[in-house]
């Protein structure tokens, strides 16, 4: 951040300060009161995550039941500040074992103080990499990586690691069984008009990895994306095998990926961090295979009755199945009574969100269950106000299916000791915002 953060606060939903760190003196200690008074206790909450009060700017994010607030006094870099909060929360999560909430903060005061001091100094972000920080700040207490007393941890160049020259991996890791897990997780976003026209559709995908590898391995990942394949066939001067190629609109990589090599050879090669991390992110807008089609017909019969028929068609392979399918069909606010039949799963009326919620736990491919419902409405005095129908929303997970068609062609692990590795690859497609207007 060209302009540094003056303070960071962690507040609970009532606005009590759980813990804070003032990095600079240029904002008053009572700035948090201003935040509470002008944002938390007004309707402003949720209108905009960046607000200015009395010469200071507040950036805030809600994470579970905690507000994380950064206060700056100058013209700061917003993107950087938010990214910092996200990374810091990830760091805390990795220390607390997954959860980041009010209780976790209350139980880890000392640890959080230590971390806050390490990750930011005088308002400038320092090292936030959990791998490195865990070397000298641990849950059991604090060890010094430089300590000469413990001979069982020979970390010769820990200095370099602490300050981040090879920020993401330390040397001397040993695993009995060398394993790599690779997950391709895609979330498909759809906006369909009531006439069945796709207004907007894209897939944002992530390649997540979990590495349990000894030493300093070099990994190479091959995907069936168009640029990579073309480049390869060009290099090897042979035509690429026929098969589907995917055009990625945009890719971003974890800092471990050698971007120079990606740009020249179009292969993804990297020395992975230990444990879990997100290797790459991509976005695709062309040639998306939608896993579900939704065909709704909603008829308003007179003033007090609505007839709803929804057919959902799964368009992936018959041997595959989707899990946790939830279809939310909106109904008017003044719904009095509902009755429905479904050919699969279970449905109920949820008055809190004004929706019929239809759940199908296991949804095989190439099937088309239907729901037909009849809704009775309370007749109101304000009759002429027509019902503005919100879209139908859908949630699902389809294992072993990628909406983009992306596939892993190879994953090579090379380490100088030449051990064998076991590689696991999984695919899953989830619903992002899957909306069908009706």
């Amino acid at each position, binding site marked *: 951040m*060209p302009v540094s953060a003056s303070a960071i606060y962690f507040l609970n939903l009532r606005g*009590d300060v759980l813990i804070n760190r003032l990095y600079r003196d240029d904002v*008053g*200690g*009572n700035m948090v*009161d*201003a935040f509470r*008074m002008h944002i938390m206790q007004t309707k402003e909450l949720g*209108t*905009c*995550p*960046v607000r200015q009060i009395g*010469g200071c*700017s507040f950036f805030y994010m809600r994470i579970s039941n905690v507000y994380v607030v950064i206060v700056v006094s100058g*013209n700061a*870099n917003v*993107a*950087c500040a*938010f*990214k910092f909060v996200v990374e810091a929360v990830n760091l805390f999560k990795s220390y607390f074992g997954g959860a980041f909430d009010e209780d976790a903060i209350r139980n880890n005061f*000392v640890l959080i103080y*230590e971390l806050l001091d390490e990750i930011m*100094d*005088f308002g*400038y*972000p*320092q*090292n*936030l990499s959990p791998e490195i920080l865990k070397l000298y700040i641990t849950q059991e207490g*604090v060890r*010094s990586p*430089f*300590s*000469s007393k413990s001979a069982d941890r020979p970390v010769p160049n820990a*200095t*370099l690691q*602490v*300050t*981040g020259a090879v*920020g993401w991996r330390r040397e001397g890791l040993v695993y009995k069984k060398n394993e790599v897990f690779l997950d391709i997780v895609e979330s498909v*976003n759809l*906006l369909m008009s009531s006439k069945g026209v796709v*207004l*907007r559709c*894209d897939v*944002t995908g992530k390649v997540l990895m979990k590495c349990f590898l000894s030493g300093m391995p070099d990994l190479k990942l091959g995907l069936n994306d168009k640029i990579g394949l073309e480049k390869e066939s060009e290099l090897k001067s042979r035509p690429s095998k026929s098969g589907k190629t995917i055009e990625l*609109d*945009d890719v*971003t*990589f974890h*800092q471990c990926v050698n*971007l120079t090599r*990606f740009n020249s050879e179009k292969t993804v090669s990297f020395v992975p961090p230990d444990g879990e991390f*997100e290797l790459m992110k991509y*976005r695709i807008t062309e040639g998306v295979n939608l896993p579900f089609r939704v065909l709704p017909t909603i008829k308003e019969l007179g003033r007090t009755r609505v007839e709803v028929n929804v057919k959902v068609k799964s368009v992936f392979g018959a041997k595959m199945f989707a899990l946790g399918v939830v279809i939310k069909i909106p109904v008017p606010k003044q719904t009095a009574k509902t009755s429905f039949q479904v050919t699969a799963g279970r449905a109920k009326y949820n008055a809190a969100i004004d929706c019929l919620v239809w759940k199908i736990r296991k949804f095989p491919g190439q099937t088309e269950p239907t729901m037909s419902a009849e809704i009775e409405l309370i007749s109101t005095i304000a009759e*002429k106000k*027509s019902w*503005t129908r919100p879209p139908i929303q859908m949630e699902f997970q389809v294992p072993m299916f990628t909406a983009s068609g992306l596939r892993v062609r190879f994953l090579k692990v090379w380490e100088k000791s030449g051990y064998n590795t076991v590689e696991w690859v999984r695919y899953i497609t989830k619903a992002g*915002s899957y*909306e069908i207007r009706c």
Partner: protein
Amino acid sequence: MAPPVHTQRSPSPSQPSGKGEVSDLKMQLRQLAGSRAPGTDDSKRELFKKVILSMTIGIDVSSLFSEMVMCSATSDIVLKKMCYLYVGNYAKGNPELALLTINFLQKDCRDQDPMIRGLALRCLCSLRLANLVEYLVGPLGSGLKDNNSYVRMVAAIGVLKLYHISAATCVDADFPSMLKTLMLNDPDAQVVANCLSALQEIWSLEAGTSEEASREREALLSKPVIYYLLNRIKEFSEWAQCLVLDLVAKYIPSDSNEIFDIMNLLEDRLQHANGAVVLATIKGFLHLTLSMTDVHQQVYERIKAPLLTLVSSGSQEQSYALLSHLHLLVMRAPMLFSLDYKHFYCQYNEPSYVKKLKLEMLTAVANESNTYEIVTELCEYAANVDVPIARESIRAVGKIALQQYDVNAIVDRLLQFLEMEKDYVTAETLVLVKDLLRKYPQWSHDCIAVVGNISSKNVQEPKAKAALIWMLGEYSQDMLDAPYILESLIDNWDDEHSAEVRLHLLTAILKCFFKRPPETQKALGAVLAAGLADSHQDVHDRALFYYRLLQYNVSVAERVVNPPKQAVSVFPDTQSSEIRDRIFDEFNSLSVIYQKPSYMFTDKEHRGSFEFSEDLGSLSVGVESADNISPAQRVEASDNDLLLSTSEEEESRGPSNNGSAYSAPIYDGSSISVVASQTQSEPTFQNRAFPAYALQSNLAIDDLLGLGPQVAPAPAPAPSPPPLNLNARPVLDPSTFQRKWRQVSASLSQEGVITSEGTAALMTPQVLLRHMQGHSIHCIASGGQPPNFKFFFYAQKAEEPVAFYLVECLINTSSAKAQIEIKAEDQSTIHAFSVVFQSALSTFGYQNLGESLV
């Protein structure tokens, strides 16, 4: 650091809850202090944890300071860290005790373990106590030369901390040049980054006073430094990369080859997973290519994909920050994004701040080829449950209509909105139809047919009502019942709160009168009567003006009110291109989010080290810039002006009657009542306006400028101006003020009450400040949050001997009380000044209840 206020919900048994616990802790710490028994460290850890816990939940444990320091003689790094934390927290409140810690901190700075050296040095620099500065220089100097990078990293920022405590000490010890050497030579990237941060800050702050510093600041942007940093960019952490990239964006390359070299080197940064790095790279690319139009466009094409990816991933807040930047780029070059309009479609569950930006982008990228799709999509949002967004989307449709040539389909859409019969949709649409008619009068037929069917009872919002009335007046010849609708509106004149609506009603009826005299005559009489009796100055004046105009010459009046109109061809842009360029220069910062250049929200001149006491805390010094109107307000303002410009400006060009000659009214019947009411209203007019001018000329001027509150003069007659002349432009800087405040003993305190109108006006303190300035009383600092406000004023006597008057004014708006303390260098005139001050403040309904001289 002020410890957070007591916040615990229900302390669990293990947590100390009060005073008893603190003294208990004190005892236990004492016992352990001298002990060397095995296992002492573990029990100390537990105790220290309890102390830290108490500190965090807001229990004051500063009384344990000496015990904590005694216990800190340990080799255990856990204990040391907790002790550092404790010391860092309470040192500021106990500067004398903090001196105790110096010894062991300095010793730790020479420890064998680099970790401890680093931590101790950080703690030492974080004490932020001016009386300890001398102890900092030594450890910092050796820290910068330490063979361990962790210590150097801490030391680099330590230098910056020292600079903020005592700039002179830092510069005298020659630390900046040491940092510079370190920055250019250190093998560790984080050390380099920290040196860079520190140097940037130090030299920017020094640049104002020292030429060398400003040269050094320029040197950071020189070719060797930039190239050195660029070549090492991959070693830096993602945060440090942002820092370097930001510096690169300011670099001015000598030729185009250099530009391409830098861009090639940085291109892969666009694929970085950290959105902040990508954004910083984009900034660099955009700024480097500003002079090369073609390449600049290619850069837009290149950065589009990464930006769109970032916007669609990550948390809402991150995507908002990125979307704001995308918004800026779209606004700069809408054509380049016209094919990507689908990315700006809103999702149902998106927060409204995201939707709002998307709507604006959709509006901007609309062109001949995509208008149909975009307008169709916008129409979907008009039925949105989120009312503000529904309104925005209707406005967006209207804006597109005003941009395009082919408005045929859009007009139909707009008219369909009117059939939705939702109040807010109707309201927004009416305003739009009005604007549309001003630009495309040829559509009047279609629009009028639909507008005529709207019942004026369903339109409540002032802007919409004004628009409807404008159309009724303007097109009264085409709308059968226009005179009758207008007439029914006059019946509710007294219930109509908006002056804008009343003004429009006046004008509309007059317009209608010239088009359909027999039907409107009665209404005209009624409206002029109502207007003349109106308490709003503008309404009253306009009614009077029309009345006299009609008396003077009817045909002239017609020319004034109903001139041939030209269609408005271009509606002015709400933001000047200069401001937009300024924002673009500050890409990747808050300016883009706030949509205004940084000088508008961070004026360093007005903020800074000036603080009177702890309790003032969030004091913002001086008058805030007058430009802090939000863009939306500005739009509204200019809309108003526009509306006025077609209807009123032409009117005001007509010959004006000076009102001395009262000829007999030309219109019989109805106008008799006009005269009657005229004669009635004249005395009240006299009473209200003129004495106000005479008594409180300053207030009246404020009011003319629209700055002053709508406050009636104080019920009691204002005190007569005392024979004290004040210097209109006294000069006093904050530190002198502080010094004088302490020195001057003669003071006068008084308490008083403020009327409710006064407190309402004080919700925006600028009003008060400007008002007082009109009385030669200047504000040096103001602050506080509602309901408590605090102001510091000063004034200077104009005659010899020159003397200052200092005022501290505390106002509580909820209890409507004010406390004033006046100090005067010249005691003999303190009462005279007090009277001046009170009379100035009496505009806000201030009344003195009692005073005491000290």
